[in-house]
């Protein structure tokens, strides 16, 4: 699947450089269950020649662990700081993947990042877009980075 290597490399670089966490990518898959449960999701939209969405989905406990490592201070509840941190992760992932999708840098634009969380929710993007999901693990935690693109 296209962009799997870019997703893996970008995610590993961002986590090791900014969060000091070594994350291991798993085998890419196509997520069929559209429902996300007890999670936090960071999202960045892509517009222009290539349209789509970059997202990162973390179970609540993983989001807390990542934010704690990111900020260097204990975070115990899903709050504004967690959403801001996960949104910023999506923003950095979007920037890295934009470089792979649009090497010229001028044909694809990124939206402002956003983050949502809840007990159960779905995120809809483009019906005809290819969805690539790459799982990652660190310690006892796991999360998914997804790219949905339609040219």
């Amino acid at each position: 699947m296209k962009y799997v290597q870019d997703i893996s490399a970008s995610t590993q670089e961002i986590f090791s450089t900014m969060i000091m966490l070594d994350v291991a990518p798993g085998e890419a898959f196509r997520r069929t269950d559209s429902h996300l449960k007890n999670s936090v999701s960071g999202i960045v939209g892509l517009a222009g020649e290539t349209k789509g969405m970059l997202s990162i989905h973390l179970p609540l406990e993983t989001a807390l662990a990542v934010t704690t490592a990111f900020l260097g201070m204990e975070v115990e509840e899903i709050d504004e700081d967690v959403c801001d941190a996960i949104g910023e992760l999506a923003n950095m992932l979007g920037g890295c993947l934009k470089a792979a999708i649009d090497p010229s840098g001028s044909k694809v634009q990124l939206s402002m990042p956003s983050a949502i969380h809840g007990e159960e929710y779905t995120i809809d993007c483009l019906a005809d877009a290819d969805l690539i999901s790459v799982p990652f693990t660190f310690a006892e935690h796991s999360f998914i980075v997804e790219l949905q693109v339609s040219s």
Partner: protein
Amino acid sequence: MGKTVLIVDDSNTMRKIVARSLRQAGIDFDAILEAGDGLEALEVLGANQVDVVLSDINMPNMTGLEFLKAKSEDDAIKDIPVIMISTETGADIIDEAKSYGAKGAIKKPFTPDLINDTLGPLL
């Protein structure tokens, strides 16, 4: 008199990370000021003596490029050096930033060493 840096980013998390990276890079500022967008940054520059600015590009209300342009038109603050820190570091955007006076650009994710290498010569 010590140096003062202004960090401009709509993400509170990223402002904290940039401030931490400055400390990790061994760059010692007497004061670290923060702004959440370009408009706030202009207000901070108007009210404080700032030696260098680290600014994001994609921000609400006033983007980093709009901030640079407005700053370049104000004689009182136009000479304060600005380094862009952003996920957006395409050649077109950086060329536009430099045309408004930006002294350099750092791509997120970044290391303290990269911050030091880029910012050090300006201090």
